């Protein structure tokens, strides 16, 4: 496959995201403008300008009408996707690490980082969709990620919008009620599979089909698959470098992991040893089945096209690479899958 290289950002990427139909790709980096691209040909629709510094996170609502960004300049901004105008800005007490729209697009969560004397919180805003420029400054919900006194790095809504799943700095995953802010469930997902000392969680992505399970990635060189309802660890994928991101592919039963050596250590090794590749694992058999090279820095973020046609990765090197899968990708079957398929067709 020949990836499209998007070079609109001047600094390392922090998040890439597709909209629901997969025709638009949203990207944010450590420079102060977010970009929106047509995923089919890599054409840039426009940039969202207004942040004063690092933008850590971007999300788009299900209708691709609004998008939200959160950055290190203590701001959460709401934008119109069509025109690129900023319609509202919330002030945050500390840098915003993650923003996410609820599945119905009526709420927005933001994680305020635990720095500058602020205790890390997940803040939920109710959106006023009738008058966009008149949003309530007061959050409708504040979740203090307290129990183990670790901060939340990432958070995501469950598919029904009832819960908020947060990935904490100490390797725990917590499930909070999105109405009462009550801690419903908690599980240590990372730091138990190996001896790694740092096991902060770097990414959470829900399964694309029904959102009944999700994948987490962590600095402890692992990724895990966890069921939303039972909150049990279903699968563990073990890699050989700290992982920054993980995604689940629709159509095929794969997961894609991205990461690599810590950015600050990159200068001390050659490109081939940095492990800057996207790794493909079989979702069910937990086996690594392939790698895609291309970046010359660690991968910070991966997003899979909602139709499973391809994926995009953003790296510390400042580039986004948009991949479209070849036919061989869709044809690939595990031995066990192949025999099963043959048996099924034989009996019919």
């Amino acid at each position, binding site marked *: 496959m*020949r990836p*499209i290289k998007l070079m609109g950002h001047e600094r390392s990427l922090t998040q890439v995201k597709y909209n629901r139909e997969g*025709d638009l790709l949203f990207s944010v980096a450590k420079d102060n403008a977010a970009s929106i691209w047509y995923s089919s040909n890599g*054409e840039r629709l*426009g940039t969202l300008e207004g942040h004063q510094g690092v933008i850590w996170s971007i999300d788009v609502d299900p209708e691709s009408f609004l998008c939200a960004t959160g950055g290190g300049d203590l701001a959460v901004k709401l934008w119109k996707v069509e025109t690129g105008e900023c319609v509202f800005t919330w002030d945050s007490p500390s840098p915003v690490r993650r923003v996410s729209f609820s599945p119905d697009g009526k709420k927005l969560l933001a994680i305020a980082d635990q720095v500058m004397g602020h205790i890390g919180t997940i803040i939920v805003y109710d959106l006023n969709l009738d008058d966009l420029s008149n949003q309530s400054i007061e959050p409708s919900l504040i979740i203090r990620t307290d129990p183990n006194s670790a901060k939340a790095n990432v958070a995501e809504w469950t598919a029904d919008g009832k819960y908020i799943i947060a990935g904490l700095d100490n390797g725990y995953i917590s499930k909070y009620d999105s109405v009462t802010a009550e801690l419903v469930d908690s599980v240590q997902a990372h730091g138990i599979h190996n001896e790694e000392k740092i096991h902060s969680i770097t990414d959470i992505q829900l399964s694309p089909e029904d959102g009944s399970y999700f994948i987490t990635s962590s600095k402890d060189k692992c990724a895990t698959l966890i069921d939303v309802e039972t909150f049990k660890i279903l699968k563990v994928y073990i890699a050989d470098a700290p992982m920054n991101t993980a995604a689940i592919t629709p159509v095929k039963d794969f997961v894609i992991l991205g990461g690599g050596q810590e950015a600050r250590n990159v200068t001390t090794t050659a490109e081939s040893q940095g492990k800057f590749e996207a790794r493909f694992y079989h979702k069910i058999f937990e086996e690594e089945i392939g790698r895609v090279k291309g970046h010359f820095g660690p991968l910070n973020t991966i997003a899979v096209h909602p139709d499973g046609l391809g994926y995009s990765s953003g790296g510390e090197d400042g580039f986004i690479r948009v991949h479209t899968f070849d036919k061989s990708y869709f044809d690939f079957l595990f031995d066990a899958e192949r025999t099963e398929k043959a048996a099924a067709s034989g009996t019919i």
Partner: protein
Amino acid sequence: MSSAVIGSWADANDEFSAPDITTNPDGTKTVITFRTNQDGKRVKVTQRIREIKVQERVHPLIAQRKNWHKYGKERNSAPGPDTSTTQLGEKVELKLGLSWKQVEKEEEETKAQNRSDNIVIQKITCRFCGGDHYTAKCPYKETLGGTASADTAAAESAAAEANGTGKYVPRHMRAGAEGILSKEARDDAMTLKVSQLNSFVDEDMLRDELFARFGPLQRVTVVRNRETGDSRGLAYVSFYSEEAAEKALNALNGKGYHSLILHLEWSKKKKT
């Protein structure tokens, strides 16, 4: 078909007429145009074109979004991808399978093999007879030596004539010289600095006894005292690949050699 129709007055001065389009019975079109090629000759270009309508079904929202106006930094850009931000990358392989590691390793090995095959191994050639020994040790020195030295003398006088004046001209500035070996041409990334060598160790010993087994070598230089010619216990060894250099570094650093313990390091601090 009519061919003399002028599309616009801007085209009126065109040397060539408008394309001649004929519709064929099988639904194709034949377009005949004339143009001037690189050599300034008139060329007749005949193209047969079949028009096919491709219908693509897209989500209505996607179709709608396709027509949005650009904004931000792209406000004034033309439709279509801008090559300054969007480029087609190099082809990458995704080989799915449990044995992907082996497949990749094999590929790496064949690549490395090809690379070392391409390196021409430097051979010693005798200036007199062309054999693979040093000129000084040529068995035909007595018989062939005279003519060869006459040749070099002639060449030198010719060079002097070419320079005109009898003034000394440094070698690199003489006619036909390739210029100073630029420092950039050397690749220090693949060079190892070997210190704590015994004083009698020379280039050939380093080459044959120590480094040859790690891969082909570019250069081996022992640093010597300018007056006495004694080794200063320091040498630079350049490989053709960084991997080989690294292998040598890991294998030999701290090992004993002629009653001293070798110390190897990269000749230059790595930047990338």
